[in-house]
């Protein structure tokens, strides 16, 4: 985050042209409050501090309740591998929500991509084509979403809801509602989950790579700055010369692209493609983004926060199963965390203004 950068030292210096100025303000809207904290603020930004504290608290609970199983590398690997699928989706979702939209179709698009990539026809071309197929299907679905929203002027909620239903239906039709196994010839794909480098399955590296690339794009490129600008005030962004429609379309394509990558991960982990994959992922991803401090109205938010939010969810699932507690309690706990997180955010927001 750029508050420690030189341009922040002279906030009143007018940027040379109008477009840069708006993009710049979009960024400032997000980092203004943190800038008061100086360099420390980067880590200590209040909302992230709360998330880190929650993670630490959950870790302590884990260490106290299951000391022998919790702090093992194997368990850490389990948590990270579990977080990978929704994690990748969450990165795309963060972009969309910062850009002022929402994508309800992520779980269904991932299911469709996994089914499309595991049809016998696709499988006959080998694992690389399967992976490319998954990514193309995801991106394609995202482009359709984006086109409907930006050029068809549909409300994001409706357009992506339609995609959710339709993609799930198409996935069911393609798979004839069966679970499609990854054929033994294409085991290279499953090895993403079984092969380990430095103790971590390859798919965790994919997850990490998506997070890092996502962070760089959002925080270090024009595309990222425009995303904040478009989400913060689309009219101002348009007047400043940003092609808001095209940008919005690209955001949904990016979200679809992430769904395609998530499909590769889920195929590797479960050895299958299925229309039942990714059920309610959209809610998990949106919840993680919101807990991470991103405003549903757009214009502000961070990827780091969203990933921390997601890790909290994954850690809760892990802790509940380690302690043999049932799923219903888990859902209650997750619901409470969403409420508490949002209340805390509002307090910290009010405190700042």
């Amino acid at each position, binding site marked *: 985050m750029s508050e420690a950068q030189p341009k922040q030292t002279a906030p009143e210096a007018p940027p040379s042209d109008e477009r840069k100025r708006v993009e710049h303000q979009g960024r400032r809207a997000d980092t203004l409050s943190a800038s008061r904290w100086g360099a420390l603020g980067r880590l200590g930004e209040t909302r992230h501090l709360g998330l880190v504290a929650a993670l630490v608290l959950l870790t302590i609970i884990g260490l106290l309740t*299951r000391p*022998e*199983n919790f702090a*093992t590398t*194997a*368990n850490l690997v*389990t948590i990270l*591998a*579990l977080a990978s699928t929704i994690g990748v989706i969450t990165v795309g979702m963060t972009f969309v929500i910062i850009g002022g939209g929402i994508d309800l179709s992520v779980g269904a698009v991932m299911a469709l991509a996994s089914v499309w990539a595991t049809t016998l026809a696709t499988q006959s071309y080998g694992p690389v084509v399967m992976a490319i197929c998954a990514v193309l299907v995801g991106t394609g679905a995202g482009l359709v979403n984006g086109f409907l929203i930006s050029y068809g002027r549909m409300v994001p909620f409706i357009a992506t809801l339609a995609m959710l239903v339709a993609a799930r239906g198409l996935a*069911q039709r393609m798979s*004839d*509602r*069966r*679970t499609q*196994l990854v054929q033994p010839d294409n085991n290279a794909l*499953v090895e993403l*989950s*079984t092969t380990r480098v430095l103790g971590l*399955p390859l798919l965790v590296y994919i997850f990490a790579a998506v997070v890092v690339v996502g962070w760089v794009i959002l925080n270090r490129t024009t595309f990222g700055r425009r995303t904040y600008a478009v989400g913060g005030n689309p009219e101002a962004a348009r007047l400043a010369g940003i092609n808001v429609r095209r940008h919005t379309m690209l955001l949904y394509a990016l979200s679809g692209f992430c769904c395609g990558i998530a499909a590769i991960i*889920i195929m590797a*982990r*479960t*050895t*299958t493609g*299925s*229309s*039942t*994959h*990714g*059920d309610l992922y959209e809610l998990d991803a949106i919840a993680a983004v919101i807990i991470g401090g991103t405003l549903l109205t757009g214009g502000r938010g961070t990827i780091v926060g969203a990933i921390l939010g997601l890790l909290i969810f994954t850690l809760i*699932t*892990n802790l509940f*199963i*380690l*302690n*043999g507690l*049932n*799923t*219903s309690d888990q859902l209650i706990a997750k619901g409470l965390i969403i409420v508490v997180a949002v209340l805390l955010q509002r307090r910290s927001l009010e405190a700042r203004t």
Partner: protein
Amino acid sequence: MSETVGRRGFLLGGAVVGAGALVTACTSNEPAAAPSSAPVNQTQAAPGGNDQPGQQVTIGFSAPAADHGWIAAIAKNAEATAKQYSDVRFVPVEPTNDINQQISAVESLIQQKVNALVLLPNDGEQLNQVARRAMDAGIPVINLDRVFPDKLSYRTWVGGDNYGLGVAAGHYIGNALKAKNVSNPVIVEIQGIATLPLTQERSKGFEDALKTFGFSVTAKQDASFTVETGTEVASNLLQAHPKIDAMWNHDDDQGIGVLAAINEAGRNEFIMVGGAGSANAMREIQGDTSVLKATVTYSPTMASSAIKLARLIAQGKGMSDLVENTVPQSITLASETITKENVQQYLPLGFES
């Protein structure tokens, strides 16, 4: 909706009728040469005159939508069996997972005045009323698997033995561990949807059977009958228990995900038993390369039996192997244990995931 039913029915029906036409063309009336999709030994179940064409009857059929291999097999078996009889007109309604829709689907069948109604409800309690209405209208209801609470709501119930399924799994695991002389074994159970009565009965049977060996379930956790939840729950459970002696997974469809998680974790110190009897699980057992050593059946062939019973009831016939003139009020199928030794004999009955 009737339009979509018509189209799908036409497509599906066309294929099966085509196959049926071939069969009847060369074998006259005797449907002994069943289409390959129907279990081979089904047609021999009722020798004597019962398979001879009789009075023309219309059989309505309603079941949940197939997002699961077992349910898909139910619909397929029902259809295939009905097509074997020249005196049966088979009227399936669009499958749905929505209670409301299933109620209206059944109502439409009542209005069509079918001669018998085969009904696999999404939820026995919630469809009880409409089944009762059918019975009151003089249409015998053949309740498939999920039972209606009110005996006035169905003429005959046919289904699997969930308690017995748990018992079979418990006996297999108990005997295996006893043979290995394990004391205080770690036994892990992965359930299906925990809120369903069938899941609770399975768990009860498992627990009771283990008790006869002096064993108990160390930990149990619920998944949702899907591959993805199987992976998620299993990967966490494996971390909770670094050393496991035996694992029972209620459902072979979600078992694909469970096995993927076990492979990912590189664990093989325990034996695993499946449930339902999918073709995939049987192939794993036959290959004998994974931890899956047995599965206990809950066979979707029950749908074939239900159609046969519906036909007999509508025609006013009894079962030729029994003394009574009418079909019994309830038929509970026994759960069988499939191991490497007898898998060959069960493979034709297995359903594809």
